[in-house]
């Protein structure tokens, strides 16, 4: 398999994104999840920069810079501060065991390959692994969101999902177009801010950020 070095580096970076989301599945510390998200976003920014360089699409440098500034630096900082302010316990509460989560991560990859694999020959993709990996990351984000108890970790799951969508965008359309990218980036920031407000309200009303406490609202 002879790939151009640039494309190989692209696949390696995509693999880094994949591994960080796998580790998020088996990690038990909230702060570590935030840092993993930051690392994942940094790798994403590098993917954007590399695609910009390889395919001569300078607008993607801006996308990369946005991802780095927002997803890798700003959002993690906000989240870590939020964790400190709300005194969110560092333990991740899960509905399924760590081992099941880990194996589910593998299942996500297989599912993504089964679903996206047949499409790959039809799409013009910078590197073969990019599309299945991005779908895997979306699925893993979904899994994180749906199997973690705390609203805080659910927010992280959503953000991982958004990263996967970004990656898919990079893979399929060489970036979604700057306006759209900026729009999505703004949305993410809003997600973080709304999440913050929501968590503060929740902490006020229930003294906890465990989403299960919301069941008390059932009529």
């Amino acid at each position, binding site marked *: 398999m002879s790939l151009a070095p640039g494309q190989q580096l692209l696949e390696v970076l995509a*693999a880094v994104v994949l*591994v960080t989301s*796998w580790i998020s599945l088996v990690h038990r510390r909230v702060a570590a999840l935030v840092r993993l998200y930051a690392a994942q976003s940094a790798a994403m920014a590098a993917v954007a920069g590399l695609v910009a360089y390889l395919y001569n699409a300078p607008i993607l440098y801006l996308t990369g810079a946005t991802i780095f500034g927002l997803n890798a630096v700003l959002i993690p900082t906000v989240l870590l501060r939020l964790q400190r302010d709300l005194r969110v316990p560092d333990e991740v509460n899960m509905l399924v065991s*760590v*081992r099941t989560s880990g194996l589910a991560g*593998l299942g996500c990859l297989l599912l993504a*390959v089964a679903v996206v694999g047949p499409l790959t020959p039809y799409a013009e993709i910078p590197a073969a*692994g990019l599309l299945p990996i991005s779908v895997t990351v979306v699925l893993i984000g979904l899994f994180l969101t749906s199997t973690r108890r705390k609203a805080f970790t659910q927010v992280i799951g959503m953000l991982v999902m958004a990263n996967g969508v970004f990656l898919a965008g990079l893979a399929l359309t060489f970036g979604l177009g700057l306006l759209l990218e900026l729009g999505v980036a703004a949305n993410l920031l809003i997600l973080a801010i709304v999440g913050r407000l929501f968590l503060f309200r929740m902490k006020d009303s229930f003294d906890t950020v465990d989403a299960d406490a919301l069941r008390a609202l059932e009529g």
Partner: protein
Amino acid sequence: MTPWEILLTTLVLAAELALAVGLAPLLTSVVRRRKSRSQRRTGPSMIQPYLDLAKLWGKGTVYVESSSAVTRAAPLISFASLLAAVPFVPWFFLPAPLGFAGDLIVVVGLLALSRFMTAVAALDAGSTFGGMGSTRDMWIGALFEPTFLLVIFAWGAPSGSTQASTIVLHGATLGAAHLSPALLLASAAFALLLLAETGRLPVDNPATHLELTMVHEAMVLEYGGRDLALIELGQSLRMVLLLELFVAVLLPWGIALSFGLAALALALVLLLVKLLAASALLGELETRVAKWRLFRVADLAVLSWVLALGSISLTYLVGVG
């Protein structure tokens, strides 16, 4: 093969055995030194493991009265099987001297035999700690053996062989293209396996004698003298062997392909540098993590399976070489 080549291969074999056994305590020492430095301790001198081995070698051995011949034979068999695994792994020369006799799966088998002998000997003496240690060790071994095999298949996928020499040769000729995502994932899985196989933190703490947390140390409590020296040397040898397999596959460049003096010298120097760097990294890693609760080790094993299987799926399903 001409007689001349046979002679040279035999020389390489002897040199590699001597190198592996000679280096083993040094690398253990490097790990300890790195660990103590990052904890702001001076740490023991670099030759301390050699001194310890010499001291143990000079001592007599005492056996538990109720123990059988298993206790006496186990350290030898355990050490011999590790020693036998050395020539299957490429060190500084390709092809590996015993490569014609078996592939990496033989190495897995030999490591398992060594583990099995230690565990059986621990049961033989009939102490409670020995039994506890051996159940734990066999459990960890069983968790990580699938990882080992999967990693071998993942490593072997590009060259289509489970032969260490073929894998390393393929990688060395490929240049930078060798560092594919699949290889990196498999190597990450192997790194986790290495921690478990060599009884390092967070799986086992090699520095402790606290009964409740011991795994390997619990199994060898009954040993002293020469037997203990063999066991300790074997433990170091196991670490060197796995570290060498790791660096040889991950960074195969510079290994000697012919009997040229310059090539051999360069390969030896690079081998030393790679091994020293890898052990220093291992020591650094050990200071960053705490010992995990025993049952969390399974989480680590699951992560290593996912990484190894992920690497294989990337190769065969996605076509990422």
